[in-house]
């Protein structure tokens, strides 16, 4: 093991790394995205057997417009918003309020409550039982029932992240804030909410893209974007109409990609900040 050998090793890697990185992006991400764009721009006949060739004539805007009106995409978009926004607001508020108390008051009862609270990270919801329960409560097929189910699934994640974080803040800091005239709510908003980035981003992604629970709870009653895609792609209107399926995929992915592009630095530091502690 002499140093020159090590150095030349590093020099080779330094030269090869950009090439490998670009090749990886093109092969692993570029090809699938290319397929989506060219297929979404083809006519029905050309898209029957989707391949990587360029469309003979670009019909991208026509296809997007057709999906927008035929599949009732705006309704599904608002359905998704109607469920995602209250869910995320709810889990963050209730989850972190619970976590703060659980972290600060170390009693035996609170230890048990904490264990119960975070068990939901591991335990999957028994979906059919949940649906039967919602039917008995008269909430099956309603937005409130759906939001309740997601709250139950994801509140554990928030409790877990926030309790861990609050335990690392010295009580003295909190007291200092209080002496300076900051009430508990202000402390909570300024100190706890910012560290919830990881949990918030992941929960937004999961709820926005979920199709399984949505199918069982609100399927057929309320449309969300993934449910709508699932319905139109698996039956009737779009069966084997790849140009329309991929036009839908583009329209559906666009909002998240735009949000991500705008807040990209924050999203990345948010995800990486909270996960490895």
């Amino acid at each position, binding site marked *: 093991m002499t140093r020159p050998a090590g150095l030349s090793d590093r020099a080779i890697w330094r030269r090869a790394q950009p090439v490998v990185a670009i090749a990886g992006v093109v092969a692993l991400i570029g090809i699938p995205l290319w397929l989506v764009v060219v297929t979404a721009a083809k006519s029905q006949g050309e898209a029957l057997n989707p391949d990587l060739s360029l469309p003979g004539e670009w019909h991208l805007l026509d296809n997007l417009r057709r999906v927008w009106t035929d599949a009732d995409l705006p309704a599904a978009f608002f359905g998704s918003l109607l469920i995602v926004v209250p869910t995320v607001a709810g889990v963050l508020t209730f989850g972190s309020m619970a976590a703060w108390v659980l972290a600060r008051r170390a009693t035996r009862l609170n230890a048990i409550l904490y264990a119960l609270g975070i068990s939901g990270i*591991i335990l999957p919801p028994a979906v059919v039982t949940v649906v039967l329960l919602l039917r008995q409560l008269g909430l099956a097929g309603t937005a409130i029932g759906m939001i309740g189910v997601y709250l139950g699934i994801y509140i554990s994640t928030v409790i877990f992240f926030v309790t861990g974080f609050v335990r690392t803040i010295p009580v003295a800091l909190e007291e200092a804030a209080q002496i300076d005239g900051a009430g508990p709510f202000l402390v909570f908003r300024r100190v706890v909410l910012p560290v919830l980035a990881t949990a918030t981003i992941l929960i937004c992604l999961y709820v926005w893209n979920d199709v399984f629970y949505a199918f069982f709870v609100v399927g057929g009653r309320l449309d969300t974007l993934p449910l709508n895609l699932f319905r139109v792609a698996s039956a009737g209107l779009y069966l084997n109409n790849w140009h329309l399926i991929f036009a839908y995929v583009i329209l559906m992915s666009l909002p998240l990609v735009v949000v991500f592009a705008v807040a990209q630095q924050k999203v990345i530091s948010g995800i990486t900040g909270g996960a490895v502690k």
Partner: protein
Amino acid sequence: MYYNKEVFAANGTTATPELASNGTLFRALRITIVYAALVAVFQNLFGFALAVLLERDNWLNRVARIFFLIPVLMSALAVGYIFQALLKPTGGVNEMIGAILRHPFDYAWLADTTWTIVVVALIHAWKWMGLSMLIYLAGLNTIPEDIVEAARIDGASRWRTFWAIRSPLLAPAVTFNVATALLGSMNGFDVVQATTGGGPARTTEILNIFIYRTFGQGLFAQATTMSLVLFLLVALMAFPVIYLLRKREEIL
């Protein structure tokens, strides 16, 4: 209340032995476990490889990281449809393999009773590898530069620095990634439904696909039993896995 108890008893006693005796239960269980294990392995391998590849902080690597995060943002259903199209016998992947081999290639990637489960697990791992990459990158960043520098001055090779110093310090990232990959794939549905729908010959029918199918056929007892089994299975697997991984962190 008495009535409810009876209904539940009836559900349990009729559905469980029937599911167990015709082998559906164990089959779906086995497929789910194989799927989850494959996804956990692939997702972590890909994520780790990408993190090591894109570790240095320059503009090219930052752009590449953003590209690898796009699948994480996309709906898993959409990802499934994309790969269903790519992997058709006449699809893009075979087209490219054919161009390289210089003769037509028409392997049906999603219709092989043995290997399709591996292909679907690869697709699932492809969708989430960007997230694993980010977590591993964060883990690599927590390693103090002076320790690595000291090892280098002591004459440790690049490989040896990597295995002896950096990889043990990645333990928390491994825990997080293995646990989320396992739990995510145990509860998987979208990718499998959009690529194979459980086929060919039900060889990729993981528990959630089974629940979806039986629920659609009105077989509530079977669907309930299965969702209970899934609950128990994940609970049984999750606690030891997390415990083991935590333990390993402590030793290191």
